[in-house]
């Protein structure tokens, strides 16, 4: 069965036709949004931002104070939301979730993983993050404070993991940053 024959594709098309008929959008506008989101969206973008912040103190400062500007500096679109980078330190580990739905900076992290949208992750990570992170294979020392960020409004979060040891060049660092690292469910 081809993609166009799937029941969900037919449902989506009917929905598109209704919103276009209602004058809320156009086919061209929808195509542009999909191109922007799905063609250009990748965790490679978030990884490049993190690696730049690790190697360039000026960029790190921009990322802290105005993360939308930091994304734009590398050519990444973050329109329609406020981007906030939360930095892991030896004392604090950050992890992001959207308990109400699945808010997430798609353009910088790529399409969200299934587990990020699952009821299990969304309900448990706010309640017992240490146990959830353990299940992801991330064991944090007892004295590390865990801060969970619930994206319940118009801010999207990006975790800046701790920089790996060693004097690696920026490109090499970027290649080590994973999507899970950018969500906070893995160390780099």
């Amino acid at each position, binding site marked *: 069965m081809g993609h166009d024959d799937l029941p969900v594709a037919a449902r989506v098309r009917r929905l598109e036709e209704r919103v276009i008929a209602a004058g809320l959008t156009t086919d061209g506008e929808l195509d542009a949004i999909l191109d922007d989101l799905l063609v250009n969206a990748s965790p490679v973008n978030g990884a490049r931002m993190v690696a730049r912040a690790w190697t360039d103190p000026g960029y790190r400062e921009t990322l802290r104070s105005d993360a939308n500007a930091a994304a734009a500096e590398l050519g990444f679109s973050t329109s329609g939301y406020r981007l906030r980078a939360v930095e892991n330190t030896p004392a604090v580990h950050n992890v992001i979730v959207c308990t*109400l739905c699945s808010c997430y900076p798609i353009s910088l992290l790529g399409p969200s993983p299934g587990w990020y949208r699952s009821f299990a992750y969304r309900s448990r990570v*706010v309640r017992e993050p240490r146990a959830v992170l353990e299940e992801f294979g991330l064991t944090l020392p007892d004295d590390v404070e865990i801060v*969970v960020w619930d994206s*319940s409004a118009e801010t999207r979060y990006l975790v800046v993991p701790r920089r790996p040891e060693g004097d690696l060049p920026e490109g090499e660092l970027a290649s080590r940053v994973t999507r899970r690292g950018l969500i906070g469910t893995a160390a780099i």
Partner: protein
Amino acid sequence: MSPYSPGTRVRARPGDPAHHTRVPVYVRGHVGEIVECEGEWPLPDDRARGITPPRVETVYAVRFPARDLWGAGAHSVTVDLWESYLEEVTTDGP
């Protein structure tokens, strides 16, 4: 200008409105601390009801200790809440 500065103690609106809202149930009635202001955004409660123009309010990141939310846990949960979801707490007792 927004009235809540970082460190201000606020209570998330208790109760369940008859319309759409974005106050997660698990923080309703709980006291947290303002972390930072996130700028002004249209209120989803109005947008979902087709009220035009919707009210535009300041959104705040509010940090809640896990122990208060769940009775256990050393972590904290930071939730983004529109201003009308919050009331300032002036005393410790309810």
